[in-house]
């Protein structure tokens, strides 16, 4: 194990509503959906129509421009509906589960003897490929690339995040098999970022992986920050990233020859009554986990965490990359003279609210903007929560002016939306930082291809 990498700049937002480390009882939902919007930049091409029978691992749609990248059904059953939005854009492909758990057989493979091409081929055909994402840009990896290394963050530092030590324990065998397979894909080896304050039992001393211990506040657990600290991305470099549960799925593919979409997710948030972990699958409807399990009032249902998750609504589906559901109050009401209140119950990085005196308190925050959008006024706010050698404000301005050279010079290759999510949280001017970063990334992809 190498030296501890201390993250100094950042912020832990103390929210109330962490999940207890127990498994809750909930039925599997009937409906599952795969959403093209989970994969930025993807143009999907449908491979099924409503009424088609599918198994776990059957292709639902493919990437129109990289046709060997397939997106598959997490369960066996029948395609119920393809929901479309504006201009017939595909929003979600919904599969109704038959509870049979039938799966396509892709055949097990002894990884140690396999070549890179065989591993790639297996991941592509089984639909597990989209879980490999590349930096720069944080998009689905390109199968023909040779990444410098593969990075896995074994802990999530975001608010109310699930505990991967807990989730992966019991699945160590599959995890190890997954790491072996990933090692075939890169010459630079697999790197795992672990939390120095946690035991990280499933992750340390995994054969074929280097661990890097991190300490400090969020975003220490973001894989982008970890890459930046271990081996920053330069122009032309490509790194791949995977999440721990996805490594388990990859391991199962090589051990058993099936696409197993199982996930353990944390049901969290101040408005959830029984907060616990539940066993489910990628794309599951969240209804069984929240129905009758939430407080009264106008609520926001988020797949993922409060910083980078997606507002999916009460009847929405778990996102492909998410291991968490968060329910918070919507906060769509007016607050009398809220900006002038002493603010003991308000969370703020600035000490202009008296809540800074209570250092241990956990907050029940809602989705209110707490103010109107303004031009950028205050300076230095972003720098305090971005532990990278990057000037966030200048990068954002380069993106807004579509100055490609400047974006490149200021480090657009090193960031993804999630890395600057805290900048958006602290922003006095309520700038939509994450969507600006994505605009910049989209522009880079367009210009560079």
């Amino acid at each position, binding site marked *: 194990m190498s030296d501890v990498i201390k993250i100094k700049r950042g912020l832990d937002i103390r929210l109330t509503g962490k999940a207890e480390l127990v498994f809750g009882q909930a039925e599997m939902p009937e409906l599952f959906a795969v959403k093209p919007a989970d994969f930025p930049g993807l143009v999907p091409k449908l491979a099924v129509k409503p009424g088609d029978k599918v198994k776990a691992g059957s292709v639902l749609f493919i990437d129109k421009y990289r046709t060997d990248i397939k997106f598959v059904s997490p369960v066996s059953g029948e395609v119920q509906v393809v929901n479309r939005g504006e201009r017939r854009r595909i929003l979600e492909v919904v599969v109704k589960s038959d509870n049979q758990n039938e799966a396509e057989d892709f055949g097990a493979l002894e990884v140690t003897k396999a070549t890179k091409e065989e591993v790639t081929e297996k991941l592509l055909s089984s639909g597990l490929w989209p879980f490999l994402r590349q930096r720069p840009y944080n998009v689905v990896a390109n199968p023909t690339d040779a990444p410098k290394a593969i990075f896995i963050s074994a802990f999530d530092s975001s608010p109310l995040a699930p505990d991967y030590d807990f989730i992966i324990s019991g699945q160590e065998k599959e995890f190890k098999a997954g790491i072996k397979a990933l090692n075939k894909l890169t010459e630079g080896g697999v790197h795992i970022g672990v939390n120095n304050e946690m035991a990280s039992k499933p992750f340390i001393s995994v054969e074929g992986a280097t661990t890097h211990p991190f300490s400090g506040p969020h975003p220490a657990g973001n894989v982008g920050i970890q890459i930046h600290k271990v081996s920053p991305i330069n122009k032309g470099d490509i790194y791949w990233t995977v999440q721990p549960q996805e490594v388990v799925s990859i391991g199962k593919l090589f051990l058993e020859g099936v696409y197993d979409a199982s996930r353990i997710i944390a049901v969290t948030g101040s408005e959830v009554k029984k907060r616990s972990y539940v066993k489910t699958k990628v794309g599951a409807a969240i209804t069984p986990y929240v129905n009758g399990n939430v407080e009264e009032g106008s609520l926001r249902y988020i797949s993922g965490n409060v910083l980078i998750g997606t507002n999916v609504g009460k009847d929405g589906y778990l996102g492909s990359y998410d291991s968490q559901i968060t329910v918070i109050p919507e906060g769509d009401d007016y607050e009398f003279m809220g900006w002038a209140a002493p*603010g003991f119950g308000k969370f703020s990085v600035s000490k202009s609210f008296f809540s800074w005196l209570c250092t241990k308190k956990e907050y029940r925050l809602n989705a209110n903007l707490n103010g109107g959008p303004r031009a950028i006024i205050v300076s230095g706010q972003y720098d305090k929560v971005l532990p990278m050698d990057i000037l966030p404000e200048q990068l954002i301005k380069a993106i807004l002016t579509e100055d490609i050279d400047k974006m490149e010079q200021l480090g657009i290759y090193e960031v993804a939306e999630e890395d600057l999510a805290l900048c958006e949280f602290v922003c006095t001017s309520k700038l939509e930082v994450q969507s600006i970063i994505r605009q910049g990334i989209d522009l880079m992809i367009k210009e560079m291809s």
Partner: protein
Amino acid sequence: MKALRQYLDKIKPNFEKGGKFEKLHSTFDAFETLLFVSNKTSKSGVHIHDAIDSKRTMAVVVLALIPALLFGIWNTGLQHFLALGQADADFWQVVGYGALKVLPIVVVSYVVGLGIEFMFAQLRGHEVAEGFLVSGMLIPLVLPADIPLWMVAVATAFSVVIGKEVFGGTGMNIWNPALIARAFLFFAYPSKMSGDLIWVSGMSKGEGIVDGYSGATALGDAAVGKMAGLADGGVFDLWNSFIGIIPGSIGETSTLAILIGAVVLLVTGIGSWKIMLSAFAGGFVMALGFNAIGANELMNVPALHQLCLGGFAFGAVFMATDPVSGARTEKGKYIYGFLIGVFAIMIRVFNPAYPEGVMLAILLMNTFAPLIDHVIVQQNIKRRLKRVKVNA
């Protein structure tokens, strides 16, 4: 509160598009959001936001200015009665006179400035930005008490329109709007902004002033070589300058009141400690340097005393720290603040025609702030390029 909310909801449609008072939409919105934090929730990106907003930020700065304002009101009255030779005037007489002189200036500044802001917000279809809440308080505090109100109005209008709105409004301006107002008056109406007669209320009329009372500021005296007041026990000795019972612009005299404001800004984290600290450091170092040379009378003023005179403290605490017109990179803030301090003392010492160098130093550094940032940004870029070379 419910009744008020219901009333607002009832009249709101009148101000929406197509409503009777459509043209007052921005104005309505400004008052509505002042009374109630909006019910808008996040649409993209993060689902929770920090409780701070632009209103809170500006309100904290205004709060930090209150000690200087209150002291200014009292001191305006005090200096007036001193000039009349009535040192025995009671507290309420003093405050009453000061309030009568100062509050109208504050009101004029706010009414004119906000009026123009509301108009521009409506034209642009924006929400009204809160920046002027601060500028509107800063402007009166950097003016002498006897300034005619119409000049306040003209200067405020000039600073809001030419200093800010032509660049795109709050957040886009190059120079500090309040200093633009002062600079405008200084160059357009020098007789009302400089000299010995304008700093004490009533002096310019000259009625009932006791014989031999000059009304000059410390720096005015020093510029013509009268150093007696600055010596220990003089009218402008270190203690009096620190407390602020000396003639000068309304809010600038009391270093003590300004420091109370500085504490508010620093504790809340709204003012940059980097700029404040380095501005004072720059001024102090420069003054020490001049002490060593000692070529003229002003060079010999002790460094600490220099920092308490004129608008130095006020400028360093409230003007230099304006994030919009100042340096925006963290390292750049040290350079920016330091040079403000250096230039303020340098102009003060070398050019007796402008004994007040702080305003010009800050405006100058406002102009150069983007250049300082550019240097810092280039350093970051170079580091990134170097990394590639090391790896290659």
